[in-house]
């Protein structure tokens, strides 16, 4: 029995959020969706304040409540490696998985694809210009609203014989961290057993692997740090999450250091109001008519 999971070493995490950026680029997630999320929190009263950083991807639970409540079986747990996935063609977008999941890792595609993709909320000259140049420079890109999507995301995965990896951008469907399933099923040994967030982390916080295998990276790291505090998020929830945190557990009194992330509406209107002088955006002497 394989169950993919992670060991996340909180003693090393500096809250740089490179993992969030890597996840976004790897998975081509829509605006406002942060499949990998890192909390920046603080605790205590000045001058005794402590900061903490807690990465929170999908925990790919062994008893996933999101899959329990899904009325169409669009959300399901894969048998062979325990990854919890979403079938975008079956998903009706009821958001019950988001309601049922206690970890807050589900993201609904609120807006149509064009607005939902970074840089394309506004259809003006600069955007068209960029489009044009991309088509000239990139043989694989034929136009459309996602010029910088990872082509590996087009592959389909079992057991649904459907594209299960990466953001779907279909309005009205749910998405969440897939443990980079497109990498796991790619057949490329260099990619299998890795995730984008793990790969990019500069301080080796994330260890991805089979939690049932004592020789796997996460299990080995947990074993090395066995004298440290090791805990799971919301362990009593009955979901049986598969992400093990190493390091101190945040108090119930922590405060988030920030407000909710910017609503895509704001980002889109910022794009609308940006300078329309293309020269302002070209830093390497690229050509623009």
């Amino acid at each position, binding site marked *: 029995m394989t169950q993919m999971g992670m060991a996340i070493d909180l003693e090393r995490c500096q809250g740089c959020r490179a993992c969030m950026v890597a996840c976004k680029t790897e998975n081509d997630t829509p605006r406002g969706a942060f499949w990998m999320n890192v909390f920046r929190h603080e605790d205590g009263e000045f001058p005794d304040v402590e900061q903490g950083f807690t990465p929170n991807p999908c925990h790919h639970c062994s008893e996933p409540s999101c899959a329990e409540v899904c009325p169409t079986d669009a959300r399901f747990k894969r048998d062979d490696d325990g990854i919890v996935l979403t079938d975008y063609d079956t998903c009706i977008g009821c958001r019950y998985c988001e309601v049922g999941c206690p970890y807050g890792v589900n993201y609904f595609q609120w807006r*149509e*694809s*064009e607005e939902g993709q970074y840089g394309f909320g506004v259809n003006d000259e600069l955007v068209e210009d960029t489009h044009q140049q991309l088509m000239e420079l990139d043989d694989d890109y034929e136009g459309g609203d996602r010029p910088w999507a990872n082509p590996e995301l087009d592959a389909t995965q079992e057991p649904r014989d459907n594209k299960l990896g990466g953001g779907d951008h279909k*309005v*009205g469907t749910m998405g969440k961290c897939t443990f980079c399933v497109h990498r796991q099923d790619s057949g490329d040994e260099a990619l299998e057993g890795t995730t984008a967030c793990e790969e990019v982390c500069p301080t080796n916080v994330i260890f991805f692997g089979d939690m049932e295998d004592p020789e796997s990276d996460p299990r080995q790291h947990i074993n090395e740090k066995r004298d440290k505090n090791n805990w799971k998020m919301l362990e009593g929830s009955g979901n049986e999450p598969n992400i093990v945190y190493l390091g101190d557990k945040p108090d119930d009194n922590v405060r988030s250091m920030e407000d909710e992330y910017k609503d895509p509406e704001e980002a889109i209107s910022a794009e609308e109001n940006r300078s329309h002088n293309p020269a302002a955006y070209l830093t390497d002497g690229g050509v623009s008519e």
Partner: protein
Amino acid sequence: MSLGLILVFGVLLAPLYLVLAGWIFGEPKDTETLAIGLAFMTAIILGPIVFSFVPISFRVIIP
């Protein structure tokens, strides 16, 4: 035997079983009227089910 199966087939549908039992075994026995009643109920049950396929037509608007 999941919670859902017991709940739906054991509890939730119990009123339906009761109705059908009352119809079939209760006096007066009138097969033709019973059949008409069952036909109506079947048609009415199928109605919403068929109707749930209608929104497929929304694809013309959904981007």
